């Protein structure tokens, strides 16, 4: 990781005192890591991370973690996590491999999205940096692997990856070589609704309106029809008219 030193003022504050829970958060924010990645950086489980975060002003119990965090903050050159490339960094090498490859891919501009296990539309989003969502963890790692693969193994390595992606797609009932494949999510085949089947839709947000006239009275026990009603989809049925209470089963 190529990092510069954190803010000098914040660093000065750390020099004369022992590290505390809040300093781990500072390390995470400075490195821009997720909690899981920061835990890997420090070699501790996520549970331990939350333990320290709940005690921001207490000393870090494990002196090893405190020494490590301090060393990482003051010596950015000693960081050891790999730097995952962005899509923009990998894209030129991908395009070159694609041009030289004997395995054609439909809509090659967006096929990279499928090759890293996501949908076609995500490539443009990642390249332009638009959208709220960050690149998922597995995809960032796959981009690094793709970069190494292209660098070390060239076009044969790339073709092997395309072949494998096609195999994985076929195992999921998809065809990578079809322009119709836009995503790895397989949609269910279209099935027309039976004539008498209930309409599908969102379940009601709240229950049916309560009859104010029946307040204070004992509610009707649910009939089999109304018992299953909440699990059904579609518009709620009208409540059946009030019936006399059923005979007591204990009699």
């Amino acid at each position, binding site marked *: 990781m190529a990092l510069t030193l954190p803010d000098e003022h914040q660093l000065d504050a750390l020099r004369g005192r022992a590290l505390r829970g809040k300093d781990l958060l500072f390390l995470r924010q400075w490195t821009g890591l997720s909690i899981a990645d920061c835990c890997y950086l420090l070699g501790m489980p996520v549970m*331990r991370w939350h333990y320290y975060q709940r005690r921001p002003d207490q000393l870090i119990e*494990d*002196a090893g973690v405190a020494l490590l965090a301090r060393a990482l903050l003051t010596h950015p050159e*000693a960081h050891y996590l790999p730097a995952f490339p962005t899509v923009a960094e990998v894209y030129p090498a991908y395009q070159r491999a694609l041009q030289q490859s004997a395995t054609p891919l439909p809509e090659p501009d967006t096929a990279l999205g499928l090759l890293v296990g996501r949908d076609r539309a995500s490539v443009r989003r990642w390249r332009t940096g638009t959208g709220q969502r960050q690149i998922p963890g597995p995809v960032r790692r*796959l981009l690094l692997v*793709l970069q190494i*693969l292209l660098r070390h193994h060239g076009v044969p390595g790339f073709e092997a990856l395309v072949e494998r992606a096609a195999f994985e797609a076929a195992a999921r009932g998809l065809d990578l070589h079809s322009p119709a494949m836009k995503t790895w999510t397989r949609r269910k085949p279209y099935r027309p609704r039976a004539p008498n089947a209930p309409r599908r839709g969102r379940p009601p947000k709240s229950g049916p309106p309560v009859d104010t006239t029946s307040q204070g009275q004992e509610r009707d026990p649910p009939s089999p029809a109304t018992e299953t009603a909440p699990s059904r989809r579609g518009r709620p049925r009208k409540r059946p008219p009030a019936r006399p209470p059923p005979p007591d089963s204990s009699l």
Partner: protein
Amino acid sequence: MATTPIPDADTLHLDLENRPVCGQDLLFLQQWYKLSRLDMCYLLGLSDLKWCHYTHPKHIKEPLGDPAVALLVWALVRYPDTFFLPAFPTPQEVYPLYERLAEQSAPQAGDDAPVHLGKTTFSLLLGREIGSASRWLSPTNAKPITPTVSRLLFVLKSLLQAHGAPGLEEWVNCAQIEARERGLDLTGKMTSWFRMDARPPGKSGRRRKAMKSPATQSAPSHTPASKATTTTPPDSPPPSDPDSFP
């Protein structure tokens, strides 16, 4: 980066040519690279929950839900040179460098007496108790180190290689700052990061027989006896630290 040969497909049942990547392959990959769960989750970019889902006996034979993870596993199996986790050094690799630089420098812990840089201080500088280095460096039965210590070794090695003796002095000063706020003193008889040796001077080499049971009397011990009442096992992180797996 680790230089691991291609996994033996027959041994590990990694017949990935004929089937999609399944949950069991994550376990095989873990076994092959000798990684912890923490390492595997970082390697594949998975949360702990997702790891448990994929490796659950119920789902172990199913293709992975995320095709990115499936392709990642395949690439790591097929092309081991794409393995990107850092290779952390062992204590055996770092200790000679530390020892050489320790001879050249006499770090002052603040404005006090110099710290004696021996094997015991090596353990303390890595956040562990004084007997740890002897166990790590044992030629016959070297004990495994915790993930935090392996990372500390990486950083310490980089620092010593880049800055030499001044780098070691800086490290000692940092450790002294951490120790002082815990009420400890690196220059004194600090036995671990939780206690000082409270024995009167001149009795540091003796062992208290009263503390030992007949069963443990015959067993060799690397830990000097201490009057401290805590019964923390050697080389253990804080009492509540779950970070105690090897």
